[in-house]
């Protein structure tokens, strides 16, 4: 089937052109952060990048593919443990270990998907959590990596990363930035591809999508595996910066799933901008209220509940509803050109 000549599908809008220009300017400023920021700023920004990446990946999974997983900590922890294992037991540089952690996570995700995809909806959610628990309990049985109490990355591994401490901070910062940019770029490109169209179709009506020849399960499994790949790399990076790993920290459901879900929902689920907005809100709350300890976590839970009940599309959803503003050129618009071409005689 060929489309008529006078019809085009476009992605960009005026707001997305302005948005992308601002994004590029912002990225240049962030890439230069080692020049204008101190050590604490770099650490804070790196942590924010990790959460943006994790939340964007969860958003892809839940917001676009409809796979609400509460077990993504499985791949954060797995990636982290692979990095530690490769660095400590095989002497591989952490720089190489990060992509290898992603590959390992994706490879494990294949059989895991075979199991958890037997469960649907809510049961899928808790099924993924149990898988993460299995990973955590298995990790605490590995005595070469410290068992239940965990282990630290040897100083030699860190020193090999870059000659000076300052340069190491820079390298780790840039890796974090590169990883979050790569994650966002991957998601944008995926959603603009025909897989993205398939995902949106499945999200809107799985039955209708299947009737139009989309293999819904296959598409979802592919997204699940791709998400595991990204999540594994982010996990490896997070624990490279922490320098210390333990099963409870690496496979923490609160740190790597509850907060990530809260961030995505507060920012706006099903939109690329959502996780970014949510991460900024999350860190603003944390920097101002962290002294309150457990009370802060209770407030975070409360804010997430209130946003879900009052504004289910999140803060960015409110912005879009009010101004129709979209930073990333994702929505397909059909444009009819001014002068329609004369009908062809075939």
């Amino acid at each position, binding site marked *: 089937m060929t489309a008529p000549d006078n019809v085009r599908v476009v992605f960009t809008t005026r707001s997305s052109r302005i948005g992308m220009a601002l994004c590029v300017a912002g990225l240049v400023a962030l890439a230069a952060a080692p020049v204008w920021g101190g050590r604490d700023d770099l650490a804070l920004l790196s942590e924010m990048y990790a959460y943006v990446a994790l939340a964007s990946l969860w958003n892809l999974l839940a917001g676009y593919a409809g796979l609400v997983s509460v077990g993504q900590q499985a791949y954060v922890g797995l990636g982290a443990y692979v990095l530690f294992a490769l660095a400590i037991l095989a002497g591989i540089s952490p720089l190489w270990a990060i992509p290898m952690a992603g590959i390992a996570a994706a490879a494990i995700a294949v059989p895991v998907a075979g199991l958890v995809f037997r469960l649907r909806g809510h049961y899928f959610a808790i099924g993924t959590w*149990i898988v993460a628990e299995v990973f955590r309990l298995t990790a605490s049985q590995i005595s070469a990596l410290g068992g239940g109490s965990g282990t630290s990355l040897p100083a030699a591994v860190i020193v090999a990363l870059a000659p000076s401490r300052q340069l190491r901070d820079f390298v780790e910062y840039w890796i974090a930035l590169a990883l979050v940019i790569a994650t966002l770029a991957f998601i944008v490109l995926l959603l603009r591809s025909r897989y993205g169209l398939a995902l949106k179709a499945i999200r809107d009506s799985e039955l209708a999508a299947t009737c139009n020849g989309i293999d819904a399960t296959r598409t979802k499994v592919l997204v699940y595996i791709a998400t595991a790949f990204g999540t594994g790399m982010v996990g490896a990076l997070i624990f490279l910066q922490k320098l210390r790993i333990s099963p409870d920290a690496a496979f923490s459901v609160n740190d790597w799933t509850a907060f990530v879900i809260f961030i995505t929902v507060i920012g706006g689920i099903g939109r690329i901008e959502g996780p970014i907005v949510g991460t900024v809100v999350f860190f603003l709350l944390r920097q101002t209220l962290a002294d309150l300890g*457990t009370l802060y976590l209770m407030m975070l*839970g409360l804010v997430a*509940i209130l946003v879900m009940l009052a504004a289910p599309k999140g803060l960015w959803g409110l912005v879009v509803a009010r101004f129709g503003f979209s930073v990333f050129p994702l929505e397909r618009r059909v444009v009819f050109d001014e002068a329609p071409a004369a009908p062809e005689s075939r």
Partner: protein
Amino acid sequence: MEWINVILQGVLVGGLYAMFAAGLSLIFGVMRLVNIAHGDLIVLAAYIALVTTQTLGIGPLTSLLIVVPVMALTGYALQWFVLNRTLGDDLLPPLLVTFGLSVIIQNGLLTIFTADSVKLQAGAIEVATVNLGSGVYVGLLPLLQFAVAVAVIGGLQFIFYRTALGRAFRATADDPAVAQLMGLDNRRVFALAMALSLAVVAIAGVFLAVRANFDPSQGPARLIFGFEAVIIGGLGSLWGTLAGGLILGVAQAIGAHLNPGWQILAGHIAFLVVLAVRPQGLFPKVRT
């Protein structure tokens, strides 16, 4: 003889898991809601029992008279004011809201009671044993706990299939729109289902508190045990849920006997094996 003992202990603990599972399965059956805070509510019930026994100076079993109504009222209010607003086609809102509740309950308990683990004292009954002959002894308390679990499952079965309330539950579960046309107020039916679920949670919480030490962080693990029991037993079957709890308990007991570090892992593996070999569960009622 050693193995008979291990399996017997597993069966008795399994009754507790079946109680965790029954409340979970009840609300999922009626309103398709998976309550992520289920485990934290069990721990909350345990703490309420702790406060009740300490302030009133009564025994844990007597405290059920207070804990069960308190939890049932909590459930009714929770459903009426919060969870009813999350129900719909989208599965994320109930999941996220109960996740938020879970974080709030956990950290609230942590603020009030600290992370120190505590235990309910039940007095002489804790150490009383029954001789089953040929060297097998069973604690009176685990036996009582098991009997209560069977009674709870039987009671739920009775409510579901022999009473007007149960008929309302089943009708709403089958088709909420038609149930409403027949004069049922779905919001009230859901609130009653949550009240019943948390009444079961209260019983489970008190027995959990008597059986072992507990602390605010234990909720999620109880949720997972309950969930595993539901899936192993098969969706929609209460007696299947009891069987699922027993199988989980026995798997954990065998794992723990082989290596203390394997207890929980063995339960998870039993669950994954059932999922791989028989995803509909062992005794499914609904065929989908």
